């Protein structure tokens, strides 16, 4: 049995429901739950933590924890807005769990967390005087101090200044390894997911749509909806390629479609089309080309073209290679 096993979990409120969620998460795995806003990510985390009533079972190793109250599940939770207790200073926030739980070597553990997350100078501070990044470190410290079996992170990077996101992602990975955590991290950002995840699950409208390794999920989405959510562009019927295929649809990265200047120059697949629009964006042009009613979106570097191919209705040949086609 997995370290954490979720079986047929469902939960309903007036206008939303989690539908038959099944997940298997291994020990020390960094599991990313990827989904759009309103897809049920936070609700699923809260159901796992026991903060919402749900049907189905949750097993930690062999033990069923789904019947336990949240305070007995040993699951750490870090909310998107960190939910630090305003009536306590930083230190009291971090050691809050120590009031209610036996924590082994708590002095040493506390010092280790404070040193590792560089919180020494913040301990006496009030919560209202902290930046987003500081609040995040304290919320993580508070969760880790309780020595949870599983750490749940609800969009922990969304309230962070984008400049610091990369360094914080790195830190999250370090925390996960250092404290031997099993982490479930919820996000809508697939770049964040691809960096952090050992395994990714896509959640849409309360259902898990796909689970797999980052490469499997991010490069081979099972459905068009997942592909669109993951930012795939140029999704068309495979009929356009005039070939037999197991897949019904394919997608091509806009950066890998070329404007064909000479026929010998190109390509496994090439098409005649008409330019519908060309937009100049900092270092590239965005080109929209109509091929028999299908609109291709192409990005071409400005260094390759002096001016936008701006003549509307101008004919153009576009092409791409088989190796750049992703079948859906």
């Amino acid at each position: 049995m997995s370290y954490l096993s979720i079986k047929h979990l469902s939960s309903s409120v007036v206008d939303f429901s989690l539908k038959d969620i099944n997940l298997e998460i291994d020990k020390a795995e960094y599991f990313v739950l990827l989904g759009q806003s309103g897809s049920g990510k936070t609700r699923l985390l809260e159901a796992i933590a026991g903060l919402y009533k749900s049907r189905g079972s949750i097993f930690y190793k062999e033990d069923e924890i789904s019947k336990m109250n949240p305070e007995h599940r040993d699951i750490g939770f870090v909310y998107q807005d960190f939910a630090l207790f305003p009536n306590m200073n930083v230190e009291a926030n971090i050691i809050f769990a120590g009031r209610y739980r036996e924590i082994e070597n708590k002095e040493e553990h506390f010092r280790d967390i404070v040193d590792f997350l560089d919180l020494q100078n913040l301990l006496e501070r009030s919560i209202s005087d902290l930046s987003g990044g500081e609040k995040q470190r304290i919320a993580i410290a508070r969760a880790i101090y309780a020595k949870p079996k599983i750490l749940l992170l609800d969009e922990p990077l969304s309230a962070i200044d984008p400049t610091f996101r990369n360094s914080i992602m790195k830190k999250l990975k370090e925390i996960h390894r250092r404290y031997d955590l099993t982490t479930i991290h919820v996000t809508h950002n697939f770049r964040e997911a691809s960096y952090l995840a050992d395994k990714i699950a896509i959640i849409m409208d309360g259902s898990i749509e796909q689970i797999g390794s980052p490469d499997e999920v991010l490069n081979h989405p099972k459905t068009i909806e997942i592909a669109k959510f993951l930012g795939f562009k140029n999704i068309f019927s495979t009929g356009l390629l005039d070939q037999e295929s197991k897949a019904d649809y394919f997608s091509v990265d806009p950066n890998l479609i070329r404007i064909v200047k000479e026929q010998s120059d190109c390509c496994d697949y090439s098409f005649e089309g008409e330019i519908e629009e060309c937009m100049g964006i900092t270092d590239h042009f965005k080109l929209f080309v109509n091929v028999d009613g299908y609109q291709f979106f192409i990005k071409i570097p400005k260094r390759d073209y002096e001016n936008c191919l701006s003549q509307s209705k101008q004919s153009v040949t576009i092409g791409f290679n088989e190796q750049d086609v992703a079948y859906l």
Partner: protein
Amino acid sequence: MKLAYKNDTFNITLIVLAIIIVFFLSVPILKMFVGVGSDKLIDAIKDGEVISSILLTMKVSLWAMVFVIITGLPLAYLIARYDFFGKSFLEAVIDIPIMIPHTAAGIALLSTFGDTGLGDFFKFFGIEFIGTEYGIMIAMMFLSAPFLINAAKDGFRKVDPKLEKVARTLGANPFRVFFAISIPNARKDIINGALMMWSRGLGEFGAVIILVYHPMTTPVLIFDRFSSYGLSYSAPVAAVIIGFSALVFLIIRFIANRFD
């Protein structure tokens, strides 16, 4: 003073209207102290009947407040946190005492806790409401509890439920969460509501006089002296209770701000 708009006519209109209401609210209070004179004020402070009535009023109002903190905070929390059938009706019921005449409230309390089955039930435990401190307490509590309950309800609504959820995941059971997170983070509103309730209790007259004439609370004593001896005998008592109330109010505010 920084004004929102640089329009003299508008600003002058605001200031003049504000001065009228401030004048109306403050002058009678100032007049009470200035008009009474220091000799009569000192005599009132030395008057044993006055002091014991002030202490009785403050003490019983405090009991009423403590009772409503114990029973009203859970009610306020239930209303703030949960949706349930009849919630709007319950909120309206809590507000009713604010709207009804106080003498009518006294009659309602007398017909409930006087010579009735419920009154007899409490008598069995040695608690009588007619002519006792318990009677003063229920009269004060009935009319001033909504101030505390409503303020606490607003305070609990301002506490992010995620704080309570996180506290649960950190090992605190719902009771501990209530005392460690919910109440401390709603404390400003709770303290304001408690002070408001306590001070409304001090001033309660209409309902108290119907249930309990003796022992006399300060408002009853003021009325008694006014009807028996006239304004010059009642005004010093009124000045003393206003002074005491303001002093206690300021001390509690100071302590509350220190803890913030």
